[in-house]
């Protein structure tokens, strides 16, 4: 792993290291996140993909420290690297040193956190209806942010900035005094994005930002987002269950399962050769609008109960490729191939310590899923 080393081109902006989160409940502790390590680079769109209960939203909330009890961060650190030129409020920057100095978001005091949030780190939630205050017009809600975080701005400047922000996300300035109920779902989501952009943050975490929207509106907002990122140079952590969306949008994708990252790859790597059997299964769960119409199998079984995660690889009960070590040894992220360390996978199939065999090809993965599927149907008939 190349964590902690800086190469000129790819400066990390946010490093998540060995973060674990538990939800404490009466009937057992839910291990929502286990030992997650990720790096977000400057200007990057990092996609977090997974099913419900995979821990993708919990990770987003952990990074922004928005988790509330019974959730508890049990370990790890989230390092944020402020831009050297930027005089961040709570983030101790060192203007003289060229190498960026990091702050651990998980160790910040409430005051420091307040300064970090919004200015450096903004979050966009799934449901815009709930995130906006229904009794205050959207202009006032944008201005409210500006007043709190940039108190030296004059009233007229705040107003001008609010209009500028609305225009940025494609809302006509005359909607400044509209209330949330007067806006369509897509417009509300745009307003939320405008609020997130208000202080020009470095990182925007988007938790299923378009899931509740219709496809046409979803595409409009995504195109808007891509254009804005180009202009304003922020980084995005995009959380979604829709892997096909990330394959169009994200630079890098982390596939999560039962609280762990099981594969980390660029969009193209994932498109061409998903390595983890779960990633393959996920990709094979989305019918395509083009190409040959073939039967797809999905993934047999259902995600595990996080109170009672299977031993070893948590995916092994559903995995068509599972072999002996999968039930006992937890696989860790490691380079998928010898040649490159770009694509990382947490699977024993790619670990020479566990298997002497060649890693499976795409065709082998497909065939195994087919047989597993046929066997499941066979059992159905036999019963």
């Amino acid at each position, binding site marked *: 792993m190349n964590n902690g080393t800086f190469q000129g081109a790819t400066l990390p902006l946010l490093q998540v290291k060995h973060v674990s989160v538990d939800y404490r409940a009466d009937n057992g502790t839910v291990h929502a996140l286990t030992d997650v390590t990720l790096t977000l680079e400057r200007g990057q769109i990092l996609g977090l993909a997974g099913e419900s209960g995979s821990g993708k939203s919990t990770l987003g909330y952990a990074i922004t420290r928005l988790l509330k009890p019974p959730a508890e961060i049990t370990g790890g650190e989230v390092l944020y690297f402020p831009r050297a030129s930027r005089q961040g409020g709570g983030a101790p920057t060192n203007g003289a040193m060229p190498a960026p100095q990091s702050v651990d978001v998980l160790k910040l005091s409430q005051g420091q956190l307040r300064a970090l949030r919004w200015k450096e780190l903004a979050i966009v939630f799934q449901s815009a209806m709930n995130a906006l205050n229904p009794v205050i017009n959207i202009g006032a809600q944008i201005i409210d942010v500006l007043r709190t975080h940039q108190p030296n701005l004059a009233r007229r400047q705040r107003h001008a900035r609010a209009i500028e922000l609305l225009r940025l996300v494609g809302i006509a300035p005359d909607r400044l005094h509209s209330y949330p109920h007067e806006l369509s779902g897509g417009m509300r989501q745009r307003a939320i994005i405008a609020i997130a952009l208000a202080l020009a943050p470095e990182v925007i975490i988007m938790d299923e930002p378009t899931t509740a929207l219709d496809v*046409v509106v979803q*595409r409009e907002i995504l195109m808007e987002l891509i254009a804005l990122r180009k202009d304003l140079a922020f980084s995005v952590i995009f959380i979604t269950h829709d892997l*096909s969306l990330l394959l169009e949008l994200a630079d890098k994708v982390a596939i999560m399962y039962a609280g762990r990252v099981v594969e980390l790859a660029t969009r193209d790597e994932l498109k061409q050769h998903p390595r983890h059997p779960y990633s393959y299964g996920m990709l094979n769960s989305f019918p*395509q609008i083009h190409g040959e119409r073939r*039967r*797809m199998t*999905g993934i047999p079984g*259902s995600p595990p109960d996080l109170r009672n995660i299977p031993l070893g690889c948590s995916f092994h009960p559903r995995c068509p490729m599972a072999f002996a070590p999968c039930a006992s040894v937890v696989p860790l992220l490691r380079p998928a191939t010898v040649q490159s360390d770009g694509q990382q996978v947490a699977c024993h199939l790619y670990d020479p310590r566990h298997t002497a065999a060649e890693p499976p090809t795409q065709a082998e993965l497909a065939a195994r899923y087919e047989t597993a599927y046929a066997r499941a149907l066979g059992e159905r*008939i036999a*019963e």
Partner: protein
Amino acid sequence: MSVEPLSGAAASRGGAPATLPAAAPVLEALHLRKYFPVRQFRLRGPSPVVHAVEDTSLALVPGRALALVGESGSGKTTVARMLARLYAPTSGSILFQGTPSRGGRRASLLAYRRHVQLIFQDPFASLSPVHDVHYHLARPLRLHGHARSRREETAQILGLLEKVNLIPADQFITKYPHQLSGGQRQRVAIARALAVRPEVLLADEPVSMLDVSIRLDVLNLLLALKDEERLAVLFITHDIASARYFAEDTLVMYAGQTVEGGPSDEVIQRPQHPYTQLLVSAAPDPARPADTPFQARGEIPSLITPPSGCRFHPRCPHAMPICRERFPGRTDLGGGRWTHCFLYGEGETATLTTARPGHTPSATTPLTPH
């Protein structure tokens, strides 16, 4: 039951749907229209209505699936509910095996539901939390007189659970909804629909509430059942890719109007109506180059005061003056495809398919040359 049906499903999916012999439709909707009154105080003028569905006709054929695709507010769920006779159509008729089915007494509804069943989107809401699986499946069996004794009932329930892959069935029969996952609940809902041995299955977004990896499993189950039981399926979805995967034919709706229809692959690969083109270009597609421009204007209109004529005209890049005046008739494009769009003609065929003149707005307004 044998293993064949699913491989049979795979085979039929590979074949060209257009070459299949046209079986007689089991359920037909002719010129359905639905207006919902809006409770709103008005001093003068007629009280406002939501124009939810306009002049929609469709036919469901045994062993085939028809996908109804559209965004929220397109009227697709309203169509399904009219077909299930949960809503009475404002006008138009529903023919079951050629005979008109009219709203009416409880007994006639019960008889109708013996043939036509509905599966809802949310399996968390469609099962009662205080009853177990046995109860949910026993009720339709009792109501429709399929089971006479308790033993017969239990045997049939076990059979149904096996049919929907809830195995071992004798363990699932005593479970309550909260003990089941979303996918399992949806399977119980499917089993409940199958309990009455229907000819028609109306599936309203049956997988969109489920986890991604489980969706295909349920879709494949429905596909297998469609073949095994020769069900006519109406598959309602907002996801054009799963429409292509699931259904032989696709019907696209926009703001209450049907705009295009035909074999799914044709409609989705070569969309003709500007709205279908917009919908396809908006769908996630990893094969599309990242910098493909996307142009959409406007938003879905209000259905209380919908745009005149073709309701897509305010957003349509090809809109002509005539589009504002009236809704085009149905233009046959060949190969089972048709569209309602002036770009492809006036839609003369509309007069042929219209059973009664004066039924469609286009038939009452005089034709204006353009």
